[in-house]
């Protein structure tokens, strides 16, 4: 075992004593649960679409080690390097992201992927954490210098990305990014009038989506009144929880995965409920709550605006995705395709999330005296 003394000043030793180890453990547990649940759910999906049974399990395992490596590597970085790497990656992925519209790989009616050999890269997944870093930088500049056009840049870049997402189309992702941007600007001190204005704007968009997009309207209608139409997938997911009960039917014994098309992704939470019962359901909810709330609690007294803006942005993204996914699975929200962070199948998603959580770990390390560059203001003393 690693045995590191508190006086160890090497990079690893210093990291070990300043990092939130419980936080890292939570992420590992979530990844572990993810692998187990993909093993339980994906063979049914793979068999159905003609892959060999353990196709998805192998691919997920293939991405686990690089993900952990990225998470731990990033967590070693100081805030300045986080910003540099984040912004550089953002520029890179923004280009790839725009390329999806031109040379993207199309599947299930959406053009979100770029093909590299057998690996399909989804740039939008990487856009999420890197965009957060970029806008956090812009907004923190705005906070120290009121003449800096932080909001304008943030809103402009966000609108560019949202436009591309609407073209792909990937409405779920657009919703999450809008929410994250809004939360970041809110925390950065957006005037209360703009907060109200944006909220109203959001509601108007939601209302018009309901009026002009029939599939949005039908999803909301079916949520409000399950009898008004076919709510088969969500009903099936609900039945899964019912079927599982307290202790579940046992690993592999569930049947919901035979019915639901995305049992290894969007509906993996239902598989957890059916095969492992309410025990695992509650454990997953508690783990996500712990991850998000503990992350926030670490930055409540943070004086460095870049740090708390980045951290809150990434935590909002992960937390929101988790809440929406679990909410849809348990029919607390209208149906919306959304993956469950760290648990659902998906290589790009896992890599990007690991990068994001690595950033959070790096920024929430205990710092006694940190050297900040000129552009990252050092609190207010």
């Amino acid at each position: 075992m690693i045995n590191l003394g508190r006086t160890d000043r090497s990079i690893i030793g210093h990291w070990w004593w300043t990092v939130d180890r419980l936080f890292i453990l939570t992420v590992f547990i979530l990844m572990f649960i993810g692998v187990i649940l993909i093993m339980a759910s994906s063979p049914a999906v793979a068999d159905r679409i003609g892959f060999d049974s353990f196709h998805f399990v192998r691919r997920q395992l293939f991405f686990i080690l690089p993900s952990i490596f990225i998470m731990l590597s990033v967590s070693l970085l100081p805030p300045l390097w986080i910003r540099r790497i984040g912004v550089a990656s953002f520029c890179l992925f923004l280009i790839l992201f725009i390329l999806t519209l031109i040379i993207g790989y199309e599947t299930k009616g959406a053009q979100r992927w770029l093909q590299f050999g057998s690996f399909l890269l989804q740039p939008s997944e990487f856009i999420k954490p890197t965009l957060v870093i970029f806008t956090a930088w812009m907004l923190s500049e705005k906070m120290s210098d009121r003449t800096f056009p932080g909001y304008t840049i943030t809103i402009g870049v966000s609108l560019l990305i949202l436009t591309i997402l609407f073209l792909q189309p990937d409405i779920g992702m657009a919703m999450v990014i809008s929410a994250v941007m809004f939360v970041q600007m809110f925390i950065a001190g957006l005037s209360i009038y703009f907060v109200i204005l944006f909220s109203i704007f959001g509601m108007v968009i939601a209302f018009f989506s309901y009026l002009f997009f029939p599939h949005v309207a039908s999803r909301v209608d079916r949520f409000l009144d399950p009898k008004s139409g076919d709510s088969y997938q969500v009903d099936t997911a609900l039945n899964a929880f019912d079927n599982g009960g307290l202790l579940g039917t046992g690993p592999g014994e569930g049947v919901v995965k035979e019915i639901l098309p995305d049992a290894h992704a969007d509906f993996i939470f239902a598989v957890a409920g059916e095969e492992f019962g309410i025990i695992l359901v509650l454990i997953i909810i508690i783990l996500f709550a712990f991850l998000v709330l503990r992350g926030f609690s670490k930055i409540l007294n943070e004086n460095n605006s870049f740090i708390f803006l980045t951290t809150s942005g990434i935590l909002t993204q992960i937390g929101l995705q988790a809440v929406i996914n679990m909410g849809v699975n348990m029919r607390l929200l209208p149906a919306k395709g959304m993956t469950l962070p760290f648990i659902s199948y998906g290589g790009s998603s896992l890599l990007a999330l690991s990068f994001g959580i690595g950033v959070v770990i790096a920024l929430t390390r205990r710092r006694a005296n940190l050297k900040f560059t000129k552009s990252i203001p050092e609190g207010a003393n």
Partner: protein
Amino acid sequence: MVKKINKMIKNIIENSNKDNEKNLIDLSQVRLVVIFGIFSILFISLFLRSVDLILLNQTPKNNFSSSNSIINEKNRADIFDRNNMLLATNVNSASIYAKPAEIINKTEASIKLASVLNNQNFSDIEKKLTSGKSFIWIKRQVSPKEHFEVNKLGIPGIKFQEELKRIFPQESLFAHVIGSVGVDNQGLSGVEKKLNKRLLDSTKSIFLTVDTRVQHALRQELYLSMKKFNAIGAAGVVMNVNSGEIIGLVSLPDFNPNIKIKPSDDAAFSRVTLGSYEMGSTFKPFTVAAALENKVISLKDGYDATKPLKVSRFIIRDDHPKERWLSVPEIFKYSSNIGMAQMAKDLGVEKQKELLKKLGILDRSKVELSEVGKPIIPRTWREINSMTISYGHGIAVNLLQVANAYAILVNGGKKITPTILLNNDNESNGYVNNERVISEETSKKIRGLLRLTVKSGTAKKADRIGYEIGGKTGTAEKPTKGGYQKDSIITSFIGVFPMDRPSYVIAIMLDEPKGIKETHFYRSAGWTAAPTVGNIIERVGPLLDVMPTKTKNYWKNFEATYISVKSNE
């Protein structure tokens, strides 16, 4: 502290006026708390929802697989006969239901379902599926084969619910004893209805007094006679004369309680316990017993039966007229209505009524079955009623009451009540209650008269060598509005065996038998009911531990003691 919070709140609203970065960071920290709070609420909602969904959700379970959810949680107790033969128990079975909203092509689904389900047609299923309801039963409690076939169809929205199904391994054999149970596990008739609460509350098995072997012989012989004489119905009961235990009870036509379709009214009707009939001459022993008991007559006395008897506007005739003076044994064995009417007149209304009451004829039977009819007795009981009742007209009772009354007459005069439950703790039943109805002496005389009737009277065709059978026939026209119909008769025979130590009474009845060539187109009880009982006794005697004997000591003794007037035949 309060000041600080006030300042923070002020900051949220007035931040645009501040350009101090310190104030901005204070504001951010407050807003971080807001986001923290929102996430806390979201996660708590998810937590509560999952608990609500899994632990508190009581909606009926929808199974994809063979889950073990059960609607009929309550297990009915098993029912056995006196020899531990299983008569009613439960098995798990699947019920098929549909959620029409999930069915893609309702017409196709209906065609497929109709092709594998028995007794279900396409249009009925389609009508159900398109009724707009969100939940409908397709078929309850199907067979394993149907379950398998429907499962194999793999129609989305067609689901299974596991339920307990009550089954009766003996099928229709005990239809009028055990009765039937509905799909919702409630007893609908017979013991299942009468003891519904007891069967649901305790899983302790119930043991009945019936004997499956005897029941089978009884049902088969009744069925054969019913077919032979083209009767519309038949009924029979076998009872232990000492304990009142019912060994067999059959009413035909009957129904198969395993088939969850309502039987026809006729099949569901118990001719043993629910139907009240004018029994005719089988009533004669009651009046004779009362007259002997009250010393109104002795066996050596007799009445003039040379011509029909006129009583006000009624004329009483004999079915087998001898047109001479008849002794009491002769009146009994030739079933003379004229003699009986005069005997009833001498006996008097009150004494006749008193004995009938003690024999249980005038009250509703307390047997543990749900279908028990109330006897129909005249509101005013005058001398003329008394005279017609003496030969079984003007009063309607059920067969079980008559069987029970005969049991009392031959068992030495001890009061018994019929029971269907083995080891009944109820003290009013069986031997425990030693109330005497008639004397031992009168009982002996009645036994002799019954034996005489089979030996040389109207019921000769019931005689079976070695069984010392005694009994009395009854032939009655069925009443209609304002009179009797000559064409429809009820024939009955109440047999007791063996006569030297009476053990069992077998009462049977044929509803509207017709004369056939073999009986020279006679259809009276002596030709139809009596031989049936003879056949039954021949079959059930050995089962009931009554072996044929060669000794006729009892009969010799009886003849020497009581019957001084020899028959002329």
